[in-house]
Each structure stands twice: as C-alpha cells, then as structure tokens.
C-alpha cells in the first residue's frame, strides 16, 4: 500500500555501521585528533591502510573493478562515525572521485584507475576555485589540447590531501565546456602545491597551480557524461557531508552534556538551568531530524526523490551541526573560548562542513524550486 520508501537499513549496513563506530572510536579519541592536527600530513597513514584493508575505499566500486559493489547507502555508515570522531582522512574525496570516474570515465579509465582507488590510492578532488562559488560549472581553469596532450592552466583551491594524493581529479574548461581530467600526482611538481590555512585544523588543504601541467588527452573523462556525473557528484557529496555532520553533532552534543551534568554554579548543576537544558533538547530534536533525513537520503539517493532528500539532509545537518558547535562553546563559558576546550574542534569542523557544497540557505532555495514550482 505504502510504496514510498522512507528508510531502509540492511543487515549489511547495520554490520558496517557497528564496525565503523568501533573502529573510529578506538582509532580516533580526541587526543589522537589533536595529535594529528600537529602532524604535517594531518592523518595517520596506518589508519588509512587499515581502512583500505577493510575494503572501505572500494565499497561503492563494482566488483569488476576491485570493489565490493555496494552502494552509497553503505558508504554513509562509514562516513557518519568518521565525522563523529573527527577522523579526517581522504576517505570522502577518494570515494567521491571513484564515483565520478565510474559515472563519466571511459572503459579504459575505469579499469586503469578504479582498482587503484579500491586498493587505497589516495585521490584528491580539485573542483573549487578562487571565486568560492559552489557552482561546479563555474570553472576558469583551462585545458588546451595539442595532439595527444592536454596543457592545463589556472589555479584550483581547497584541494584536500593533495600532497599525499596519488591521483588528482580536476575540473577545467575544455573547448568552453566543463571537463574532468585525471592527473597523476607525479605530473605535478611539489612547487605547484601551496598549503592553505583553513578553519578546520584537522584538514590539509592545498592550492594547486595547474600552469604548465600536461597530461595525456586520454585522461579526460567522457564529455557526454560529465554534466550528469557532476550533478550526481553534488548529491553524493551532500550525502557524505550530511553523514559527517550528523556524526559530528552527536559527539558535540555529548561533549556539551558532559559539562552540563558536571559543572556547578550557584550551587546547582548548570544543566538544571532551562535556558541550557531546553537548548540541548532543541539540538537533540534538530539532530534527530537531520539523521532521519540522512538515512532517508541514503535509501533513495539513486532515485528520483534523491535530490530532494539529500538537500533536506544537507540543509538540516549543516544548520544543526553549526548550532550544536556554537552552543558547545557558549555553554562551556570561559573555558569554551580556549583552544584547549574541544568545543572549538566541532565548531570549526562544522564551518568547514557547511561551507562545502552549499549551506542551508542554498539548499532550501533549491528545495523551493523542487517542491513549489
């Protein structure tokens, strides 16, 4: 009778979620997060290797290319605990790059690159530019074709983990149209990368100069499929960002609750004050909504409703993660203002997360078009 699919959650997803929750909790306590902030690469290669060994980089890659042939619904169950424990790895970018190759790659590109990614080759996405516009077609970098070679120019920004990446997937204009190009990291001189200083200190972000970089013309993804691949990429990115935000909100709320139940002022626990208690409830209910949107989006992401579902997830999760982080700082008082207090980790992560692929206002505008016109 009820044919609309709300939320489905398979045995497989349940197991993955449990494994990922335990893994992230063990590997990434806050102390480890803070250690990684001080480390050059920003993530633990040992952990990355274990994630690859667990098969997580190939979850949504078909078996014929070395993956396990599951879907984005399964990837979500990994992304949420990663977010919860602020475990910054190239997992999301690598996963998303594989999907772009899967969607728009030629047969040769798929069989050349996807098995490498499934095995754990770090892949970076170079899609942003200095203008900071979320529109994936707002691209000024260029590629000029000379026989079998493409010569690139321009600058990409906010490329995470570019330094350690083995593969970089960049957007450029080719013949006036947005094109996606695979760049072997060895084609880039180290001097082409400049480390950026970003709000979320768990991230390693780079600016990449493409000036003078050449790649084989065979590295351009199929032009006919690029637009649909980019549209799907936007949805999948929103899905994983929502997952990360839901996880982050849960941890942030718990961090706040810990303080509300132990800190006393005026001879009572501060959590007994309603302006704090009721706000905590608002964060809880906002988070529950975000998580329901998230798992609904994970269920229908590849269907017609997928876009509406995932935009709701992104709008809600961006907003609630930001609010949870904001209140976490405020509710810790003077200590909340310090670097030592973990509240800043969540607030700064939430800013990074919100600023990717559209904030709440951006998505509600798109939702209005989908729902009201």
């Amino acid at each position, binding site marked *: 009778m009820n044919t609309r699919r*709300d939320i489905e959650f398979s045995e497989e997803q349940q197991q993955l979620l449990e494994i990922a929750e335990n893994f992230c909790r063990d590997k990434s306590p806050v102390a480890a997060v803070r250690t990684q902030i001080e480390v050059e690469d920003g993530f633990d290669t040992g952990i990355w290797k274990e994630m690859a060994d667990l098969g997580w980089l190939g979850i949504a890659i078909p078996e014929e290319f070395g993956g396990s042939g599951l879907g984005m619904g399964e990837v979500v169950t990994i992304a949420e605990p990663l977010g919860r424990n602020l475990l910054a790895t190239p997992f999301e970018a690598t996963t998303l790059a594989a999907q772009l190759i899967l969607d728009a790659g030629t047969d040769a590109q798929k069989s050349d690159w996807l098995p490498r990614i499934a095995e754990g080759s770090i892949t970076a996405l170079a899609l942003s530019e200095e203008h900071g516009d979320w529109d994936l077609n707002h691209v000024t970098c260029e590629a000029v074709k000379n026989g079998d070679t493409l010569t690139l120019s321009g600058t990409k920004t906010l490329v995470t983990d570019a330094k350690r990446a083995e593969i970089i997937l960049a957007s450029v204009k080719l013949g006036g149209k947005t094109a996606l190009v695979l760049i072997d990291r060895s084609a880039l001189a180290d001097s082409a990368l400049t480390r950026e200083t970003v709000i979320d200190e768990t991230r390693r972000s780079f600016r990449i100069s493409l000036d003078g970089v050449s790649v084989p013309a065979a590295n351009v993804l199929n032009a006919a499929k690029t637009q649909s691949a980019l549209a799907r990429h936007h949805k999948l990115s929103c899905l994983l960002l929502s997952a990360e935000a839901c996880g982050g909100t849960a941890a942030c709320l718990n961090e706040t609750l810990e303080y509300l139940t132990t800190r006393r002022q005026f001879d009572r626990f501060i959590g*007994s004050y309603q302006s704090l208690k009721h706000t905590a409830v608002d964060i809880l209910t906002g988070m529950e909504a975000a998580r329901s949107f998230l798992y609904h989006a994970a269920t229908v992401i590849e269907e017609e409703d997928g876009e509406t579902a995932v935009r709701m997830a992104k709008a809600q999760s961006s907003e609630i993660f930001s609010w949870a982080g904001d209140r976490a700082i405020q509710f810790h008082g003077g200590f909340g203002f310090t670097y030592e207090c973990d509240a800043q980790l969540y607030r700064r992560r939430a800013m990074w997360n919100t600023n990717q692929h559209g904030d709440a206002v951006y998505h509600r505008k798109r939702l209005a078009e989908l729902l009201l016109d």
Partner: protein
Amino acid sequence: MSETLPDIEAFTEEVRDWVTKNKPGKQDFLLPQSFMEVGTDQQFEFLRDWQNKVYEAGYLGMSWPKEYGGRSMPQEYQDIASRELARQKTPFMVNTIGLNWAGPLILHMGSEEQKKAFIKKILSCEEIWCQGFSEPDHGSDLGNAQLKAERDGKDFICNGSKIWTSLGTYAKHMILLARTDPNTNSKYEGLTFFLNPMDIEGVDPVPIKKMTGEYGFCQTYFDNARISEDCIIGKEGEGWQVAMTTLMFERGATGGQAGGHSMMSTTIEEVIDLAKRTDRDGACSTEDPLIRDELVKLIMTSRAMGLNAARARIPALVSERPASIPMSGKLLGSEYAKKLGEVATSLQGANASYYVGDDNAIDGGRWPRGYLNAFSATIGGGTSQIQKNIIGERVLGLPKPPRTN
C-alpha cells in the same frame, strides 16, 4: 471459536470502500479539529454519531477484547482502518479520552466489573469521558493536585475543583486525580485515582469561554460530592502511579489505544495550496523568496516527523537514545501545527485580519482560528516547556532543578 482473519488486502479494500461510502459530507458549520475544541451541541452530536457509526461498522477498538466490545483482532487491522479514516479526512473520534487513555487504562489495570461496565460504551460513544487532572492552582505541577476526597465509610466526599475539563458538560465519567491523604511526606503520595461519575449530586461542570470566543472546556466544581470506593482504579494512595500510566497512554509511548485519529490535522499541502491562492506584490505568494523559504522549512519539519517515525522502527538507527523520537513527538507535532497555522494566516496579506463569521474571511476563517486553537496542544497534555524538561531529564540525563518548598 476464533474466526479466521480477513486477508489484509481485502480488508484494506473493504475499509476504503466503507469510508468512501459513509464519510460525512461537508457540514454548514465549522468542525472542531480535536476533542479539546468541541464547543456546541451541534458539533458534539455530529461527532458522537460519527464515532458510533464507525464503531458499529467494526472499525474501532478492533484489537480490544471481544468480551468487552472489541473484536480481538491484531493491531495491524486497526492501524489500517485508522490510517484510512485519517487519509480520507473523516472527522476525528470525539471520545478521545475514553479511547486513548481511560479505556487502555481500564483494560490494563481495571477490575472485571469496570471493564464490563465501561469499555463497550467508550467505543460506541454512548458514554463520554473527561479528565480531571488540572486544578486552578496546580497544572504543570500535577503531583501537587489538592482536590480533597475524604473517606466516609465506603465512600469519599469530594470538595474542590478541577479546571480546563474538555468535554466536561458532555461527559458521563471523569478520570479524577484527588488527594485522599493530605498528611504525607511527599506530594506524590496520598493521591488516589477515581473513575468518577459526572451525573451525581455535587459535581458541576461550568463552561469556560476560550480565547476564540467559543466554549470548549469547563471548570468542574465538587461540592460534597459523594463517590463510592468502587470507583477507585489501582490502589488508594497510589494515584500518582496510575496517573503516570495514563500519561504514558496519553503520550502514545505505549500501544493499547482503541484507534481512530484524535485530531484533524492541517497538512502542509493545504497551506501550499493556500499560498498559491494568495498574492504578494502583484504576484503569487509562492514567488516571494522569503515565503518560499518559510514553506520549505515547514515541509522539512513535516517530513522529518514522518521520517523520524520510520527510523524509530529500525533499532540499529536509534540505539543511542531509543526514547528520543517517541518522547519528542508531542512537542514537535504540536509546535509544528501551531506554526503551520501562523504561517498560513500570515500568507493572506491584509485579509489575514478577517475572522470566522465574516464573508471575506479566506476559507471561512479556518486559518486564524486554527492557529489560536493550536495552542490547545502546545499547552494541554503537558506544555511544550514541560515536554522539554522531560526530554532534557529523561532522554538527555540532565539534572532537575534543586527542590524548593
């Protein structure tokens, strides 16, 4: 003895047909949206007859035991019938207190005599039930209820008053929380829960005018009203525990209700439809960017509640705080309904000022009236602020404020 159960699909089909054929047409008076808004005899009689018709057709109390008037069928069948009744926007079941909390309570812990005496008439709507919890001086602080019930042999003599008694003038019975022992250490002791007859001498429900100008609830005065000890449900002095069990049924945190919907909810689709019929700056309201954003937020809230319910059915996705979604439903639903009414009204530009009774009022003035009436649910049944206290304390484990006396 046991009949074979009807095939689910055939049953669904059957209910759908029945509802289509039997649902009442449009009335020439505005119907209330919940039992807390019934203000005229005309409204009441119409709703009573409708509930009776649904019961006689076999679509109410389906999972309640046959010997007391139900059909002893699996809950699933009732759920199908309830859904269909709601889907086709039929009027709500007016004996809400009987169906959803007094009835389940009696089935749960009442005596055999009580079950025999009350259950069937709750379903058939022959006997309306009301709730006597709140008092003029004690509302949110329900545990402090002070209406006096003094023992006199096998009877109790009651004095004091209850207030905001919905359906008070129509009710045959009241679930009543009264103080039988004023000298206890804790306010929660010394309370007793009665199934109190309304038609006895000394019980007087006096209607109170609501902010909308209509009637809907009463102050119920007790002046040396004599009730028998047989009216007690649970044990003397343990009324607080019984009241808490009742609230569990009331908040829908447990099953056991007779079924049928208890309010007519306005849907976001209706508000969008309204928006498309109103203008702003020479264009349709739905072209205004800020209105669009407001509508999208409401659509999201409405979807989130539905999706929360879906997620709550998957234990692996609610394992951290299983009580969170069920315990937040009342808060979110009532606040959303009020917001919906507010936004719907504000869409109407200058015409938002017309009210029920004026020919110019859009849709007969249902929107501003709906907004005002929506406070019934953000206040009644435990205010939104109290809901937040409860969620904060029980779900998030936050401390209660220190006790003061």
